């Protein structure tokens, strides 16, 4: 199966480990992620301004790229890209006036009327591949690895774009279970990581990250799995500081769910690019016998 795939900027830079492990895993599951031609920035953060049309140009242009390749579906892997593209698509579908303004403004492009469906990779795994067929393809079950799934906010909020139950999502739980991991359900799985506050209010983000990580540890997690490069940045990069400020805190590896997927499907660990993770997960994975050469 071929699916149009929108990578976004971070997956080509800081989160190369997310992209490589995702593309390789999906190939192993029989899904070919075909990168869109001429994609541009997703818009990064959905606009809350009333006068937002200009901000919507970037995401809508990307959806036009999808329409141009005659695809009716586009897969995103980054949670932020998912959120911006999905919401821009909803706006185009539900607001004929703004749709008209945007189409008129982009006169050099073909008209876009919401023909494309925006999905996240986790949805593809659940709805197209299926948990059962994933678990059948697992070569190296993540036995004994206690992983806490962390969802962050952009996969779930607002409700109109949620990929699962907003308050108690289970989609990543289900995936990790299919991979044979011991899933740790902890109460901060949907709390905010602090997001872009890292730029203007880094101390606040330290608070957020500490709350999330200490809760995951208290509930017995050895690693945290997530899908968002923004969350990964905050939850990973902040740990250096937290080790100074919280005695006894030794750090906890943060992994993209795709890295765990690749590992369990028996792919070469090289595709996981573990060297890009802020906290090196390899000692933990080795101790569990999950790193084969």
């Amino acid at each position, binding site marked *: 199966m071929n699916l149009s795939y929108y990578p976004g900027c971070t997956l080509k830079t800081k989160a190369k480990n997310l992209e490589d492990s995702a593309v390789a895993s999906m190939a192993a599951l029989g899904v070919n992620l075909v990168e869109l031609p001429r994609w541009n920035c997703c818009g990064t953060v959905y606009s809350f301004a009333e006068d937002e049309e200009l901000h919507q140009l970037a995401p809508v242009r990307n959806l036009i790229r999808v329409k141009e390749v005659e695809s009716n579906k586009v897969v995103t892997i980054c949670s932020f890209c998912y959120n911006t593209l999905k919401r821009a698509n909803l706006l185009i579908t539900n607001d004929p006036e703004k749709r008209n303004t945007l189409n008129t403004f982009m006169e050099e492009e073909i008209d876009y009327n919401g023909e494309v469906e925006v999905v996240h990779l986790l949805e593809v795994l659940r709805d197209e591949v299926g948990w059962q067929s994933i678990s059948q393809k697992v070569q190296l079950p993540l036995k004994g690895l206690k992983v806490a799934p962390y969802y962050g906010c952009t996969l779930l909020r607002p409700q109109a774009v949620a990929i699962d*139950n907003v*308050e*108690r999502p289970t989609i990543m739980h289900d995936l990790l279970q299919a991979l044979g991991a011991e899933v740790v359900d902890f*109460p901060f799985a949907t709390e905010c990581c602090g997001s872009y506050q890292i730029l203007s209010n880094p101390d606040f983000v330290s608070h957020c990250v500490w709350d999330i990580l200490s*809760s995951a540890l*208290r509930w017995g997690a050895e690693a945290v799995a997530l899908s968002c490069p923004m969350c990964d940045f905050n939850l990973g990069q902040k740990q250096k500081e937290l080790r100074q400020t919280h005695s006894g805190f030794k750090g906890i590896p943060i992994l993209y769910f795709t890295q765990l997927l690749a590992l369990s499907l028996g792919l070469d660990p090289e595709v996981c690019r573990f060297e890009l993770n802020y906290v090196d997960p390899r000692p933990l994975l080795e101790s569990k016998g999950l790193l084969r050469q």
Partner: protein
Amino acid sequence: MLKRIGVFICHCGLNIAGTVDVKRVVETIKDYPGVVHAESYIYMCSDPGQDLVRRAIREKGLDGVVMANCSPSMHEKTFRNVVAKEGLNPYFCEVANIREHCSWPHEHEKELATKKALLIIETTIEKLKRNMELTPMVVPLHKRALVIGGGIAGMQAALDIASAGYEVIIVEKLPTIGGHAIQLAGTFPTLNRVPCLMAPRMAEIASHPKIKLYTCAEVEDISGYVGNFAVKIKTKPSYINEERCNNCELCLGECPVTLPAEFDRGLSQRKAIYLTPREAIPQKLLIDPGSCLHFNGNECHACEEICPTKAIDFLQQETIAEEVVGAIVVATGYEIWDKMNVPEYASDPDVIDGLQFERILSPSGPTGGEIRRPSDGKVPKEVVFISCVGSRDPEHGFTYCSRVCCMYIAKQAVLYSRTVPEGQAYVFYMDIRSDSKGYEEFVKRAVEEERVLYLRGRVSKVFRDGDKIKVWGSDTLSGKSIEIAADLVILATAMTPSEGAKELARKLNVTVDALGFLTEAHPKLRPVETLTTGIYLAGTAQWPRDIPDTISSSSGAASKVISLFSRKELLHEPTVAWPDEEVCSGCGICASICAYHAIEIDPKRRVARVNEAVCEGCGACIAACPSGAMRQKNWTAMQFFEMLDVATGAYV
């Protein structure tokens, strides 16, 4: 054909006259063919208004009357009685609805509204001209009542009707009467213990010579009409031979199946063979076939083997009883919304719903009246109440306020504070709704004298943190976020109609609203009646209510039944369907679509027969009849044609 018709136009204050030019209507209509008199008055339904009508009938020798005023559901009866007093057949009075159908919807189009009012009146005149003289039918009246539901509402209605001297049948789904009320620990605002309220009433019902009680029973089928409802009641077996059982309770110890007890809302356990709770009437031993191994493909005979009197009877079958009653009170009560619908709050055994906390507070509850939390039996020192869980939250499908939660939270918080003096109760609320007698004072006392801390704001999240349950909320009065490390959290979840109420409503031919509550005939003027004559509503089946409101509505329903039963005979509207036997081919389409089961096909002559006492005159069979054989008295096709000619005359 009527030839001397009078037309009376009501101003209804400014309701009609503010929009419709009534003077012009009078001037125009008095020259209409067949009209010999026309006048208007500010309130036709008032005494002087009615006198105008009577005087005109006498002085002008009117043979028919058109009343142009409000909807016939308001005053048709009034004016038919008025003309009857002057010796006219009441069916020679027709209502032209120029308020609901004209002046109200066309408030801003005065000219058009006046024209429309004239057309409505003219069509009504054309109908009236061709009316027949009709006499209401006398139908038999069985002076026995059926009460569906044996909760506090059904009990009140039954006692009221029985004490007026009429027989009452109560059908209760559960093994015991008393409903949710006997689960409660106390009442607001007086903090009465519930057994003191309920026990004497329940005992009175059990021993009342006029009351017959069916428990573990459901209404299987209902047919008939006011005065003559035939009811089939299905009773589930208890699998106990009550004459043999000596209440030794040996069987309870032998039964290998343990499951959460419904009465304690899962906070205690029961066996598959179990006794109704101590509060219950009747006290009864029964086997629950849903969980009993014997009924689920297993050879278990544990209770049968230990029973010294051979009272266990696995072969008992359900029984169907048939009763004929004249009136029905529906008192099917409420359920509370399952807390698991709000996963952001309820994923922990120490997050409970309001009824579970009633059981914990109750002296006969699972903790013997000591306040202990479910997870580890510790006495909770910090208790958080969350109001409006579901209620007033359209996102969860509840647009309404459940009306009892604010008060029961205050009651529970006070009972808690008194039992655990070193503890602290917190209440998160949106608004405090305490609008009945003594309620505001009670809440005030809870705040000022009983140390209950009220926080105005919503809770965003509840989660386990070691031994504690963290509650995150906001206090919108101080503008601060709040975190409480609680030991127990109580959710006041929304009150919903009880399970099966919708299905029962369908059997009874009564309507439910979009939320599933039974609908009254008129929200203001007929609050305890349904649109099906002879069926009345009591308690929370209709709308969330507290105990005093439930008692009032139940007594209201009972008084309607009593006033119905106080009549010598029952009259039925004669505007019913009748088949023209010469045309009818006996195809049976009419019988198959009749919602009231009023039509049968005569097996001998192969023509339709209408049971006039059952026919409600809805007209469905007339529309469905392929040969035009079915007619309705005073709503004939001819009348419709004449009316249509007038109504569409301006457009042809």
